[in-house]
């Protein structure tokens, strides 16, 4: 009984308070890769805890197996890992786990289908009216407005308008290319896509939306860093300013921090301290480990070992 309360509490915490807290940690932008791992751990632990919470209410035969696997006395296993005597609750819990899995799977299909059809359309159009420039997989589109993006996937490519080519100098152009290539080589579309799936599967969990927005930002920072490593801060911030200033105008940016935040970040030369990096890494591991530790604690408790109160 206590286990489910602990797990449930942890689940609520990680789904609501934790995302809010993480979004306040500004220094994550100094170590975007670790920051990304932290957000991913947070989301994974929410899903994992939900599944574990349901599984510990498993019906008799499942709890038998869990107890056997942990070499506990069957009775102790029963007490901790199942709702005693209530087979129906146990079965409902099992069904709930399956529903959880189904919901995620359906959302995954929906998101990837929408994504893929968009990408295929882009590729067809680009193959028809785009002009490959220079060497590998860079396509130009005749349009005065400076725009740059990449089409991820198997036949990935980077797209730039003729307007972008005019607006950027050689170094800035190369920096943008490097930024987009970083997205492609590190499969950022899958990283963000995973969060799209969670948002789609569980739209009532606002923590997932927050996570998705922050992960999208972190991923841009990671790509910016890759471009800075090769072409320097000036080229990248120059490109950001020019494409932002002369690019297409849209509705008021609801969540995006936009160009200013990214340029400010690049100009901030403070390094991520070892302390910061270690803390983030430890926090990530702790978040992932905690629900597992909670579940295994009765097993760790020495009094339960080999002692069957018959």
């Amino acid at each position, binding site marked *: 009984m206590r286990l489910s309360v602990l797990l449930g509490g942890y689940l609520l915490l990680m789904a609501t308070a934790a995302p809010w807290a993480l979004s306040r940690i500004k220094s994550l932008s100094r170590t975007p890769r670790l920051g990304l791992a932290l957000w991913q751990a947070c989301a994974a632990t929410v899903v994992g805890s939900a599944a574990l919470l349901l599984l510990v209410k498993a019906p008799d035969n499942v709890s038998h197996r869990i107890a056997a696997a942990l070499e506990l006395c069957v009775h102790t296993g029963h007490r901790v890992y199942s709702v005693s005597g209530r087979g129906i609750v146990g079965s409902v819990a099992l069904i709930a786990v399956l529903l959880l899995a189904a919901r995620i799977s359906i959302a995954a299909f929906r998101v990837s289908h929408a994504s893929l059809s*968009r990408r295929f359309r882009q590729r067809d159009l680009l193959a028809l009216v785009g002009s490959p420039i220079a060497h590998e997989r860079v396509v130009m589109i005749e349009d005065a407005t400076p725009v740059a993006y990449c089409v991820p996937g198997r036949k990935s490519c980077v797209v730039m308008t003729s307007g972008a080519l005019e607006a950027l100098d050689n170094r800035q152009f190369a920096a943008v290319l490097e930024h987009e290539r970083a997205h492609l080589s590190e499969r950022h579309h899958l990283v963000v896509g995973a969060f799209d799936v969670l948002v789609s599967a569980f739209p009532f969990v606002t923590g997932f939306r927050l996570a998705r927005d922050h992960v999208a930002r972190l991923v841009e920072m990671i790509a910016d860093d890759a471009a800075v490593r090769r072409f320097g801060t000036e080229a990248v911030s120059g490109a*950001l300013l020019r494409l932002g200033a002369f690019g297409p105008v*849209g509705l008021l940016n609801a969540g995006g921090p*936009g160009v200013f935040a990214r340029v400010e970040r690049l100009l901030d030369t403070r390094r991520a301290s070892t302390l910061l990096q270690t803390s983030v890494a430890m926090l990530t591991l702790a978040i992932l480990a905690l629900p597992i530790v909670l579940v295994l604690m009765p097993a760790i408790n020495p009094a339960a070992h080999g002692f069957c109160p018959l």
Partner: protein
Amino acid sequence: MAQLGELERVVMERVWAWNREVSVRDVLEDLQRHRVVAYTTVMTIMHRLERKGFLVRVSSARTHMFRAATTREAHVAEVMADAWSAAGDRQSALMHFVDRMSAAEARQLRALLEKPKRNSRP
């Protein structure tokens, strides 16, 4: 495979240039002036282009006639419109270098760019 893509471009360029209904044979004869290509190849290509929505089949008593679905410019515009609708949906289908700015933000950025550089160290 890349050759097939190249041929698709060539066929569409011809159809756009002619700006009328064309048959497979029309296109085939034109292509054969510069390259070796079979009727079935051209037919496959034109059916593919139809499937992709770039050509429209025109019902005709005699042979299959096709015409361009729309102009080249319209397709170029479609690329851009499509690229931004993906971003608007908060979908990660494409990854833009920068998001669309609001008019105010764009103005501020332009002001920043016009400011002369204070420290012009190399």
